[in-house]
Protein backbone atom coordinates (compact mmCIF):
# COMPACT_ATOMS: atom_id res chain seq x y z
CA UNK A 1 0.00 0.00 0.00
CA UNK A 2 1.42 3.34 -1.03
CA UNK A 3 1.64 6.41 1.17
CA UNK A 4 -1.23 8.08 -0.66
CA UNK A 5 -3.55 5.15 0.00
CA UNK A 6 -2.62 5.06 3.68
CA UNK A 7 -3.30 8.80 3.90
CA UNK A 8 -6.63 8.38 2.12
CA UNK A 9 -7.82 5.64 4.45
CA UNK A 10 -6.59 7.42 7.55
CA UNK A 11 -8.27 10.70 6.60
CA UNK A 12 -11.49 8.90 5.65
CA UNK A 13 -11.66 7.01 8.93
CA UNK A 14 -10.89 10.22 10.81
CA UNK A 15 -13.66 12.09 8.97
CA UNK A 16 -16.28 9.39 9.49
CA UNK A 17 -15.48 8.84 13.17
CA UNK A 18 -15.57 12.58 13.83
CA UNK A 19 -18.86 12.92 11.92
CA UNK A 20 -20.41 10.17 14.05
CA UNK A 21 -19.13 11.87 17.19
CA UNK A 22 -20.91 15.08 16.07
CA UNK A 23 -24.18 13.19 16.36
CA UNK A 24 -23.38 11.23 19.50
CA UNK A 25 -22.11 14.08 21.69
CA UNK A 26 -24.64 15.40 24.15
CA UNK A 27 -22.92 18.74 24.64
CA UNK A 28 -23.37 21.07 21.62
CA UNK A 29 -19.90 22.57 22.13
CA UNK A 30 -18.33 19.14 21.76
CA UNK A 31 -20.35 18.68 18.57
CA UNK A 32 -18.92 21.89 17.16
CA UNK A 33 -15.37 20.82 18.03
CA UNK A 34 -15.88 17.41 16.38
CA UNK A 35 -17.30 19.14 13.30
CA UNK A 36 -14.15 21.27 13.09
CA UNK A 37 -12.16 18.03 13.05
CA UNK A 38 -14.34 16.76 10.17
CA UNK A 39 -13.55 19.95 8.26
CA UNK A 40 -9.84 19.50 8.87
CA UNK A 41 -10.06 15.93 7.56
CA UNK A 42 -11.87 17.16 4.45
CA UNK A 43 -9.20 19.82 3.97
CA UNK A 44 -6.65 17.03 4.16
CA UNK A 45 -8.53 15.28 1.38
CA UNK A 46 -8.39 18.46 -0.70
CA UNK A 47 -4.63 18.65 -0.21
CA UNK A 48 -4.39 15.00 -1.23
CA UNK A 49 -6.27 15.90 -4.42
CA UNK A 50 -3.92 18.88 -4.94
CA UNK A 51 -6.78 21.37 -4.57
CA UNK A 52 -4.68 23.64 -2.41
CA UNK A 53 -6.79 26.77 -2.77
CA UNK A 54 -9.95 24.98 -1.67
CA UNK A 55 -8.12 23.36 1.24
CA UNK A 56 -7.05 26.74 2.59
CA UNK A 57 -10.44 28.34 1.91
CA UNK A 58 -12.14 25.42 3.65
CA UNK A 59 -10.03 25.94 6.76
CA UNK A 60 -10.41 29.72 6.75
CA UNK A 61 -14.11 29.94 5.92
CA UNK A 62 -15.56 26.80 7.49
CA UNK A 63 -13.30 25.94 10.41
CA UNK A 64 -12.39 29.58 10.99
CA UNK A 65 -15.42 31.73 10.40
CA UNK A 66 -18.54 29.56 10.36
CA UNK A 67 -17.63 27.33 13.28
CA UNK A 68 -16.61 30.32 15.40
CA UNK A 69 -20.04 31.78 14.62
CA UNK A 70 -21.64 28.52 15.82
CA UNK A 71 -19.56 28.50 19.01
CA UNK A 72 -20.40 32.14 19.61
CA UNK A 73 -24.13 31.51 19.27
CA UNK A 74 -24.02 28.43 21.52
CA UNK A 75 -22.15 30.30 24.23
CA UNK A 76 -24.47 33.29 23.86
CA UNK A 77 -27.49 31.05 24.43
CA UNK A 78 -26.01 29.27 27.43
CA UNK A 79 -27.53 25.95 26.33
CA UNK A 80 -27.23 23.47 29.16
CA UNK A 81 -25.77 20.06 28.56
CA UNK A 82 -28.93 18.07 29.17
CA UNK A 83 -31.51 20.74 28.41
CA UNK A 84 -32.08 19.27 24.97
CA UNK A 85 -35.23 17.18 25.12
CA UNK A 86 -34.52 13.83 23.55
CA UNK A 87 -36.63 12.41 20.84
CA UNK A 88 -38.42 9.18 21.54
CA UNK A 89 -36.36 6.08 21.06
CA UNK A 90 -38.68 4.92 18.30
CA UNK A 91 -38.17 8.14 16.33
CA UNK A 92 -34.39 7.87 16.73
CA UNK A 93 -34.43 4.27 15.63
CA UNK A 94 -36.56 5.15 12.61
CA UNK A 95 -34.15 7.94 11.70
CA UNK A 96 -31.13 5.67 11.82
CA UNK A 97 -32.93 3.00 9.80
CA UNK A 98 -33.99 5.57 7.20
CA UNK A 99 -30.47 6.98 6.89
CA UNK A 100 -28.99 3.49 6.66
CA UNK A 101 -31.41 2.45 3.93
CA UNK A 102 -30.64 5.67 2.06
CA UNK A 103 -26.93 4.89 2.22
CA UNK A 104 -27.42 1.25 1.17
CA UNK A 105 -29.64 2.24 -1.74
CA UNK A 106 -27.20 4.82 -3.06
CA UNK A 107 -24.18 2.54 -2.67
CA UNK A 108 -26.01 -0.25 -4.50
CA UNK A 109 -26.90 2.18 -7.28
CA UNK A 110 -23.37 3.53 -7.62
CA UNK A 111 -21.86 0.07 -7.52
CA UNK A 112 -23.64 -1.07 -10.66
CA UNK A 113 -23.01 2.09 -12.69
CA UNK A 114 -20.87 1.03 -15.60
CA UNK A 115 -19.52 4.52 -16.39
CA UNK A 116 -17.74 4.76 -13.06
CA UNK A 117 -16.02 1.39 -13.10
CA UNK A 118 -12.25 1.65 -13.25
CA UNK A 119 -12.17 5.45 -13.31
CA UNK A 120 -9.25 6.84 -11.37
CA UNK A 121 -8.89 10.11 -9.49
CA UNK A 122 -5.68 12.02 -10.09
CA UNK A 123 -4.00 12.44 -6.73
CA UNK A 124 -1.10 14.74 -5.94
CA UNK A 125 -0.68 15.97 -9.55
CA UNK A 126 -2.57 18.33 -11.83
CA UNK A 127 -2.53 22.10 -11.72
CA UNK A 128 -6.24 23.04 -11.64
CA UNK A 129 -6.38 23.31 -7.86
CA UNK A 130 -3.68 25.98 -7.66
CA UNK A 131 -4.42 29.67 -7.25
CA UNK A 132 -3.22 30.78 -10.68
CA UNK A 133 -5.58 28.74 -12.93
CA UNK A 134 -8.48 29.13 -10.49
CA UNK A 135 -8.04 32.89 -10.34
CA UNK A 136 -7.85 33.10 -14.10
CA UNK A 137 -11.09 31.14 -14.50
CA UNK A 138 -12.82 33.02 -11.67
CA UNK A 139 -12.07 36.46 -13.06
CA UNK A 140 -12.69 35.67 -16.73
CA UNK A 141 -15.45 33.06 -17.19
CA UNK A 142 -17.10 33.40 -13.79
CA UNK A 143 -16.74 37.10 -13.10
CA UNK A 144 -20.51 37.79 -13.22
CA UNK A 145 -21.42 35.18 -10.55
CA UNK A 146 -18.47 36.44 -8.53
CA UNK A 147 -19.86 39.97 -8.54
CA UNK A 148 -23.39 38.76 -7.87
CA UNK A 149 -22.14 36.91 -4.79
CA UNK A 150 -21.17 40.28 -3.32
CA UNK A 151 -24.83 41.32 -3.61
CA UNK A 152 -25.75 38.02 -1.94
CA UNK A 153 -23.45 38.81 0.97
CA UNK A 154 -24.88 42.30 1.28
CA UNK A 155 -28.43 40.96 1.41
CA UNK A 156 -27.40 38.27 3.91
CA UNK A 157 -25.79 40.93 6.09
CA UNK A 158 -28.85 43.16 5.97
CA UNK A 159 -31.10 40.17 6.67
CA UNK A 160 -29.04 39.00 9.65
CA UNK A 161 -28.96 42.50 11.16
CA UNK A 162 -32.71 43.04 10.69
CA UNK A 163 -33.63 39.60 12.07
CA UNK A 164 -31.27 39.96 15.00
CA UNK A 165 -32.35 43.49 15.92
CA UNK A 166 -35.98 43.01 16.81
Amino acid at each position, binding site marked *: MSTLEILFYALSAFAIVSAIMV*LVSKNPIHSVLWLILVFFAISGHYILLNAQF*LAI*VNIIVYAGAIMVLFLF*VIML*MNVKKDSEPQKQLLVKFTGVIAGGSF*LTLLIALVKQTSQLQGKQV*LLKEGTIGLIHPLGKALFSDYVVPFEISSVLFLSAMVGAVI*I*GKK
Partner: protein
Amino acid sequence: MPILYYIYLCLTLFSIGVVGVLTRRNAIIVFMCIELMLNAVNLLLVAFSKMYHGAAYLNSPTTTIGIDAQIFVFFIMVVAAAEVSVGLAIIVMMYRNTHSVDINFLNRLKN
Protein backbone atom coordinates in the same frame (compact mmCIF):
# COMPACT_ATOMS: atom_id res chain seq x y z
CA MET B 1 -7.35 6.04 -6.21
CA PRO B 2 -10.63 4.77 -7.72
CA ILE B 3 -13.46 7.29 -7.86
CA LEU B 4 -15.78 4.75 -6.23
CA TYR B 5 -13.93 5.02 -2.92
CA TYR B 6 -14.50 8.77 -2.89
CA ILE B 7 -18.17 8.26 -3.71
CA TYR B 8 -18.57 5.79 -0.85
CA LEU B 9 -16.86 8.17 1.58
CA CYS B 10 -19.01 11.11 0.54
CA LEU B 11 -22.21 9.06 0.65
CA THR B 12 -21.34 7.92 4.16
CA LEU B 13 -20.73 11.48 5.34
CA PHE B 14 -23.94 12.65 3.66
CA SER B 15 -25.97 9.86 5.27
CA ILE B 16 -24.53 10.70 8.70
CA GLY B 17 -25.77 14.25 8.10
CA VAL B 18 -29.22 12.94 7.13
CA VAL B 19 -29.39 10.78 10.26
CA GLY B 20 -28.43 13.80 12.34
CA VAL B 21 -31.18 15.92 10.86
CA LEU B 22 -33.70 13.14 11.51
CA THR B 23 -32.70 12.24 15.06
CA ARG B 24 -31.60 15.41 16.85
CA ARG B 25 -33.91 18.09 18.23
CA ASN B 26 -31.41 20.84 18.93
CA ALA B 27 -31.75 23.34 16.08
CA ILE B 28 -28.03 24.20 16.13
CA ILE B 29 -27.00 20.58 15.73
CA VAL B 30 -29.50 20.09 12.92
CA PHE B 31 -27.92 23.10 11.24
CA MET B 32 -24.43 21.66 11.74
CA CYS B 33 -25.53 18.41 10.12
CA ILE B 34 -26.66 20.40 7.08
CA GLU B 35 -23.16 21.90 6.92
CA LEU B 36 -21.76 18.37 7.06
CA MET B 37 -23.89 17.36 4.07
CA LEU B 38 -22.72 20.43 2.14
CA ASN B 39 -19.12 19.48 2.80
CA ALA B 40 -19.66 15.91 1.62
CA VAL B 41 -21.04 17.26 -1.66
CA ASN B 42 -18.07 19.63 -1.99
CA LEU B 43 -15.61 16.79 -1.57
CA LEU B 44 -17.44 14.76 -4.19
CA LEU B 45 -17.35 17.67 -6.66
CA VAL B 46 -13.61 18.05 -6.22
CA ALA B 47 -13.08 14.31 -6.64
CA PHE B 48 -15.06 14.29 -9.90
CA SER B 49 -13.16 17.34 -11.12
CA LYS B 50 -9.88 15.53 -10.56
CA MET B 51 -11.28 12.44 -12.29
CA TYR B 52 -11.99 14.35 -15.49
CA HIS B 53 -8.78 16.32 -15.17
CA GLY B 54 -6.77 13.15 -14.74
CA ALA B 55 -8.18 11.65 -17.94
CA ALA B 56 -7.15 14.73 -19.95
CA TYR B 57 -3.93 15.36 -18.05
CA LEU B 58 -2.17 12.40 -19.64
CA ASN B 59 -2.55 13.86 -23.14
CA SER B 60 -1.79 17.49 -22.41
CA PRO B 61 -0.41 18.55 -19.01
CA THR B 62 -1.54 22.16 -19.40
CA THR B 63 -5.25 21.45 -19.77
CA THR B 64 -7.72 23.13 -17.43
CA ILE B 65 -10.55 20.64 -17.86
CA GLY B 66 -12.35 20.14 -14.59
CA ILE B 67 -11.69 23.58 -13.18
CA ASP B 68 -15.40 24.46 -13.26
CA ALA B 69 -16.17 22.02 -10.45
CA GLN B 70 -13.64 23.69 -8.18
CA ILE B 71 -15.13 27.12 -8.97
CA PHE B 72 -18.53 25.64 -8.09
CA VAL B 73 -17.19 24.43 -4.76
CA PHE B 74 -15.94 27.94 -4.11
CA PHE B 75 -19.40 29.36 -4.82
CA ILE B 76 -21.03 26.72 -2.61
CA MET B 77 -18.79 27.91 0.23
CA VAL B 78 -19.83 31.51 -0.49
CA VAL B 79 -23.52 30.62 -0.36
CA ALA B 80 -23.00 28.50 2.77
CA ALA B 81 -21.36 31.41 4.57
CA ALA B 82 -24.29 33.69 3.73
CA GLU B 83 -26.78 30.98 4.69
CA VAL B 84 -25.15 30.37 8.07
CA SER B 85 -25.26 34.04 9.03
CA VAL B 86 -28.98 34.31 8.29
CA GLY B 87 -29.79 30.90 9.76
CA LEU B 88 -28.01 31.58 13.03
CA ALA B 89 -29.79 34.94 13.27
CA ILE B 90 -33.10 33.09 12.91
CA ILE B 91 -32.07 30.59 15.61
CA VAL B 92 -31.09 33.42 17.96
CA MET B 93 -34.46 35.09 17.34
CA MET B 94 -36.24 31.80 18.03
CA TYR B 95 -34.29 31.39 21.27
CA ARG B 96 -35.21 34.89 22.34
CA ASN B 97 -38.90 34.20 21.81
CA THR B 98 -39.17 30.69 23.25
CA HIS B 99 -36.03 30.36 25.46
CA SER B 100 -35.29 27.06 23.78
CA VAL B 101 -33.65 25.77 20.62
CA ASP B 102 -35.95 22.78 20.39
CA ILE B 103 -37.18 22.48 16.81
CA ASN B 104 -40.47 20.96 17.98
CA PHE B 105 -41.53 24.42 19.14
CA LEU B 106 -41.64 25.42 15.50
CA ASN B 107 -44.79 23.37 14.88
CA ARG B 108 -46.72 26.47 15.87
CA LEU B 109 -46.25 27.51 12.25
CA LYS B 110 -48.93 24.95 11.40
CA ASN B 111 -51.81 27.08 12.66
